[in-house]
């Protein structure tokens, strides 16, 4: 059974219907959850940056080694060196926050530039960008990162530059697609024929009005991607190195104890990864549906 009902009263002016009534309930839940996660991440980042933590994350307490969650003062327990897991989780955000923003910035700026070049100018630029996309797609991202790590040094910023660069084609093709859609509707031509300068058309009409939601969504997805990459590489031992905490190297450090049935040292960061990445994904998809109206009529 599906229910449909019309508002009683005068139809005609719909502007007084609040946006959350028009939207799909699921999307609102997605976006609220996503925003909650983003807020938590930002707040935790700031807490970590100013060292406002329950415990010093580097404070080794051999007497408290492997205390289970709930031990007095240690909400999530301690790890194999007796360090507070909760504090280390908060500090772990330092590992990906700024590098992740860098990756997102690279992909958005690079992607919209190339996308505009390919979509607006077309021709050779388009062909070149297609090849660039194919080239980037030919590398598994992680293999490329391993190569860079081996050649230079295992530095999280190097890794994030690669992540950002490899996301450039994704953003570029989306921006290009949008421009081609607008072109197909003669929108760009109409703007040119009105006499608008190319700068206004590209910056104001294309990027600002028509690509902004797309870019916001890509930013959230890109951040999720960056977190995944950072944690994966730290897990593999190439990202953030002990004793600096990262969610990835925390999982790795807890792995041996996991097999002994002591779950918490690796489960806490793993769940943090799960819920955070999910938050960014849900935020992206929810925003996509809200702003672009993928569902319903």
């Amino acid at each position, binding site marked *: 059974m599906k229910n449909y009902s019309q508002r009683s009263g005068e139809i005609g002016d719909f502007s007084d219907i609040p946006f959350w009534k028009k939207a799909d309930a699921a999307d609102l839940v997605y976006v609220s959850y996503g925003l909650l996660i983003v807020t938590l991440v930002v707040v935790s980042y700031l807490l970590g940056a100013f060292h406002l933590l329950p415990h010093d994350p580097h404070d080794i307490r051999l007497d408290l080694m492997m205390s289970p969650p709930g031990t007095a003062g240690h909400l999530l327990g301690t790890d194999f060196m007796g360090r507070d897991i909760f504090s280390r989780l908060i500090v772990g955000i330092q590992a990906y926050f700024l590098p992740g923003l860098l990756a997102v910035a690279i992909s958005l700026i690079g992607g919209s530039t190339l996308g505009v070049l390919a979509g607006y100018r077309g021709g050779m630029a388009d062909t070149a960008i297609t090849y660039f996309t194919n080239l980037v797609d030919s590398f598994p991202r992680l293999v490329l990162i391993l190569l860079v790590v081996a050649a230079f040094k295992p530095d999280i910023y190097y890794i994030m530059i690669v992540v950002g660069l490899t996301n450039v084609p994704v953003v570029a093709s989306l921006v290009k697609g949008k421009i081609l859609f607008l072109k197909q*509707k*003669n*929108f760009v*031509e*109409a703007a*040119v*024929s*009105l*006499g*608008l*300068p*190319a700068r206004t058309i590209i910056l104001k*009409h294309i990027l600002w*009005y*028509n690509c902004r939601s797309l870019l916001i969504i890509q930013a959230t997805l890109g951040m999720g991607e960056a977190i995944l990459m950072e944690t994966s590489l730290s897990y593999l031992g190439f990202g953030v190195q002990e004793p600096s905490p990262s969610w990835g190297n925390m999982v790795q450090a807890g792995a041996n104890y996991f097999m002994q049935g002591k779950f918490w040292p690796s489960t806490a960061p793993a769940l943090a990864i799960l819920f955070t990445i999910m938050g960014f994904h849900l935020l992206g998809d929810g925003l996509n549906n809200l702003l672009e109206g993928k569902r319903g009529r």
Partner: protein
Amino acid sequence: MPKTILEVIDLKKHFFHRKGLFSAFSGEERRIPAVDGVSFYLKENETVGLVGESGCGKTTIGRTVLRLAAPTSGRILFDDKDITTATTEQLRKLRGQMQMIFQDLDAALNPKMRIRDILREAITVHHKVSDEEVSRRIGELLEQVNLKKGKLSNFPHELSGGEKRRVGIARVLSVGPRLIVADEPTSALDVSIQAQVVNLLRDLQSQLGLSYLFISHDLRVVELISHKVAVMYLGKIVEMGLSGRIAHAPKHPYTHILWSSLVEKQSKESSSATRNTQSGIWGVFDFERPYSGCRFAPRCPVYESQGRPTVCTDPASEPQLRDIGDGHQVACHFPL
């Protein structure tokens, strides 16, 4: 004697399609002569209609004339000035005087902008104008296109087709053009709304002294609104003249077929006579089919009834437009 505002001399616009990735090396290209040597002129306060089947190049002419696309060869004179090689910046200035109405209702309307902002932007493109002046101009434009003020704060998707078209026209008028290329301005609209738009365009012409290049496949509308009509076939004008003569005394077999197909649909009993003139019309209409001589010959009933004269298919004697009196021009070896 009204001044000539637009003159097009032997305009050609060819599109090149590369056949694939490696064709750049092999030089294998597909050439589509969308516009293949077209000449005509448009006087001030006059309307020239451009008709033809889809894909015959009429829209391309409109775009090229406004230099939205660069011509392959030929010359375009606007106000006796050659704009064929004008720079982007020169063109941008010229756009204050020549405008285009697009077939797609949404073309002129940024979906994320309110109608007021769309009009404001258009008003301020070419002139620096104060805010009061902008609102005064907006009010004036709304009156000209007969649109309610309440619509100003709406977004484009909240408007009906007719309203969108009116906003599009208001946007075009806001820069104060003298020449408007109207590309199928009524085809996306309902019959009852079409009539409103046709009337509006005619009123605007008499009020503002506009000149129209009116592109449409709707023969009745073209006949109604145009002073002169040019009939296009495969990138060429095959007949041109006063609209009444084109409609009622066509000389080119193709023009005859176009107009009789209108009557055909209506008349209950299609006479065998008209049916005969249409024989052979099933030939597919496209640029890729090779032809030599007259490009209409493969579909031409006269060519058939004359016993396929060689002059029609001789590459050396492609029929050219020639005057047969009263400014009526036809490109046919055997005019009706």
